[in-house]
């Protein structure tokens, strides 16, 4: 969680967004002024303590979950199928996305929201494929949250029945806890990482519906055991679907595109 990595969310930048304007997908306009009026309580009867207890009983992530529900309703209204792609840095998410867009060209409109701490390099790579993309820079933040996605949606014109791919910040910990309003989380594990990533970062593999085992073209050069990786993933999430792919050679891509087709048509 973010209390572990100490990240902050005060430096978030969304391409094209005015930092002082905040209008949500549902039309709510608000600004993030941080004024706090401390009016001292003067009117207490002598002898009574001003202190009292207030029951809260609310989940800490309640606020994010409320924004995620708004995003989800927005996607449902336009029949937009949204995937949240999560992985550690360097698993090949952006390359996989570029190849996916190329192969869907002509059949499916794809829009991309890119999350990185800094630079818009990934959004530029996506835009080079012809797909609209918007970059969110999280600054010190280690994950995207539903509030940021809501603001990014204001900058995008999502066509009806299109596909929205959100590439989360490379991090196997915090993005697991933050619902963005997506239909599914897809976790990408590359074979140059350890087989035991699923049990080291169980929340992420538990939260995902699909695991893409990427860079499979490198298997002949590695000691990576696909069988073991799959066993570990199924241990933390018995229901997880798994596809072996190589964005580089195109192996497994047809199966991945078929998965998108099946899930987006409401299977």
């Amino acid at each position: 969680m973010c209390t572990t990595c100490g990240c902050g969310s005060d430096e978030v930048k969304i391409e094209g967004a005015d930092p002082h304007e905040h209008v949500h997908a549902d039309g709510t306009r608000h600004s993030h002024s941080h004024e706090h009026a401390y009016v001292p309580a003067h009117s207490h009867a002598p002898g009574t303590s001003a202190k009292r207890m207030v029951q809260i009983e609310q989940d800490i992530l309640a606020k994010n979950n409320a924004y995620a529900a708004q995003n989800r309703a927005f996607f449902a209204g336009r029949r937009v199928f949204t995937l949240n792609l999560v992985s550690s840095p360097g698993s090949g998410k952006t390359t996989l996305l570029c190849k996916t867009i190329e192969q869907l060209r002509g059949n499916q409109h794809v829009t991309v929201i890119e999350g990185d701490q800094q630079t818009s390099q990934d959004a530029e790579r996506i835009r080079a494929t012809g797909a609209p993309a918007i970059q969110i820079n999280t600054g010190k933040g280690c994950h995207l949250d539903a509030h940021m996605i809501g603001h990014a949606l204001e900058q995008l014109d999502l066509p009806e029945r299109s596909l929205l791919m959100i590439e989360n910040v490379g991090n196997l910990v915090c993005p697991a806890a933050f619902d963005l309003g997506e239909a599914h989380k897809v976790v990408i594990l590359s074979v140059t990482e350890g087989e035991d990533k699923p049990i080291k970062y169980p929340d992420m593999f538990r939260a995902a519906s699909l695991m893409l085992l990427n860079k499979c073209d490198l298997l002949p050069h590695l000691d990576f055991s696909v069988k073991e990786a799959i066993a570990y993933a199924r241990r933390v999430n018995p229901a997880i679907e798994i596809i072996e792919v190589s964005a580089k050679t195109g192996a497994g891509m047809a199966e991945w595109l078929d998965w998108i087709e099946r899930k987006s048509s409401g299977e």
Partner: protein
Amino acid sequence: MSLAEGVLQLIEDAARREGFQRVTTVWLEIGQLAGVEVEAMKFCFDAVTRDSMAAGAQLEIIATPGTGWCLPCGETVELAEVYGACPRCGGYQVQVTGGKEMRVKELEVA
């Protein structure tokens, strides 16, 4: 840090609802399987609440134990880690039933 900010937001929402101006103690219920570092949470809470209505507030953490339902044993068992093995049979068919909570339980306010 985002979690600490989430706590502050819940406090500020409650302040608007209940009409209080200061918070002196905050009780959080954090499950042992929630993946939250208590020391990091305390540090972040202090940083986030500086200059807020909860500045200087005492943060009390109520740790709730990790529990799971083991299918083969048909019993509730104690779990030390998420998706860990059942301490009785060593199997992994254990559904987490408790210990993932991250809740603001109550506040002492003035």
